């Protein structure tokens, strides 16, 4: 038990003293997952809109499929992206394997379904009487959409936050696509919080792992607090 407490305090020390390698890994994690969330937002929200406001054949099935993919395993995304970007694959010429860019792609794919699906739910959740009222007051499509977003904005923000949380906490795709490398240059390295925790624990550096774990949890906490803040308004 003493060991655990000791490791915990060493972890806190690593964080307070802004240990360079801890900071570097944290920063890389944030940038990669934030970028993935940004890209996924730009794709998922319009896509969710398109699916929600149009009536088409097989719409229910599409929504079902999107919802099934909420549970998309990270290692399958990893495998899928690996086959495409490995040198022998169709996009191999881009030399993307083992780069942060590739990790962003993988995380974007990973969180697209959940963000699209939650956007659809958010829009569906808008009270039908509000929708009818907007329509009956003579709003054109543009105004209608604008007001719909306004009504659904909290749920959409929640979707984005959830996407970010899933991206930053996943380890399977990050290790398969990034390779968990550490180099002398920031942008050539692919070690992020989750993969570093996995490696350092296997190497017996429990304090270091714990420090990273605490940071990861703190990030989740901050995301959650921001989300609550936004939703309370």
């Amino acid at each position, binding site marked *: 038990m003493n060991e655990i407490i000791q490791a915990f305090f060493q972890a806190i020390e690593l964080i307070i003293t802004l240990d360079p390698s801890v900071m570097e890994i944290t*920063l890389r994690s*944030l*940038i990669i997952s*934030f970028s993935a969330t940004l890209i996924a937002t730009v794709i998922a929200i319009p896509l969710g809109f398109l699916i929600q406001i149009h009536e088409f054949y097989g719409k229910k099935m599409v929504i079902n499929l999107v919802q099934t993919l909420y549970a998309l395993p990270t290692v399958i995304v990893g495998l899928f992206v690996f086959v495409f970007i*490995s*040198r*022998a*694959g169709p996009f*191999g*010429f881009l*030399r993307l*394997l*083992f780069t942060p860019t590739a990790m962003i792609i993988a995380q974007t794919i990973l969180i697209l379904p959940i963000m699209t699906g939650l956007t659809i739910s958010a829009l569906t959740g808008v009270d039908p009487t509000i929708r009818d009222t907007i329509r009956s007051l003579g709003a054109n499509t543009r105004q209608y959409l604008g007001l719909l977003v306004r009504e659904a904005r909290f749920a959409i923000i929640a979707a984005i936050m959830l996407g970010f949380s899933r991206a930053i906490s996943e380890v399977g795709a990050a290790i398969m696509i990034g*390779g*968990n*490398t*550490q*180099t*002398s*240059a*920031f*942008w*050539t*390295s692919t070690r992020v919080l989750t993969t570093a925790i996995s490696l350092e624990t*296997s*190497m*017996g550096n429990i304090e270091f792992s714990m420090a990273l774990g605490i940071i990861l949890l703190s990030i989740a906490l901050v995301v959650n607090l*921001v989300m609550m*803040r*936004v939703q309370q*308004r």
Partner: protein
Amino acid sequence: MEKRSIFLVVVVLVAALLICGCTQSEVAATEPPQTLRIATTTSLYDTGLLDALTPAFEQEHNAVVQIVSAGTGKALEYGQRGDVDILMVHDRARENTFLEEGYGINRRVFAYNYFVIVGPESDPAGIRGLQPEEAFTTLREKGIEGTEGVVFVSRGDDSGTHGKEKAIWQSAGYEYAADVQQSGEYYIEAGSGMGATLVMANEKQAYTLSDIGTYLAYQGDLTIVPVVDEGDILLNIYSVMEINPAMHPGVNTSIAQDWINYMVSDDVQQQIAEFGVESYGRPLFNAAAGKADTLGIPAEECATPLA
């Protein structure tokens, strides 16, 4: 309030980007460094040898060395797909196939050491001092009988060390897939790197096969000890080779050859021979230069610079 918190997040991220941008531009003052990608075995990476050797190379050649640590099997797979420029592995038999198939060229042996069978101090299987083959035979028999405390943790990840383990089983007269795998609860396949496997064997107070380098590097955290460390079959030879640019035109062959020559240079051979003395009281590796006979390999392959 909502706007302010979003604004704060953006400010932090922009600041972060700027910091990274600055630190990077310091490194790349003149031209952008080229990247050398190396796939290596976990036993080599976990000892920290490569981390010690890369800075000097990076400075000399204006390069960034990116090391992907994986078992030899996976490293060979990366090489076959052309995802890396250099392989640093230790499985002669599979390396030979890899070279014959034309995926790799310019193999050079740069270091060697030995494998050891490590296990609990009390040695419940009673294999201390046996020949490796006898030791494995005894482990298997006692394990199947269910002798208390006899457990063997295998890498089980198709790595070079796993390859060596299979070779010992074979040399002892067993068919690996049929006679050993799933022959009983005593035989556990870890499916992880050398360091992780040692940690696992230690937790379970089990036996395992390890290269001496990784064992010594982890010794401080372990209570298991070497019980078998003699036998010709335990020789462990590390090679470096480049991926054939004819197979994968994208690989960076010039920097790859620089790396091979760097590894076999007198200076680095000296460093390899001394690596670990300070921390572990003895070297983790032996330099390969001039040891062609000991290793039973052709002289031109033994730490000789590329033509």
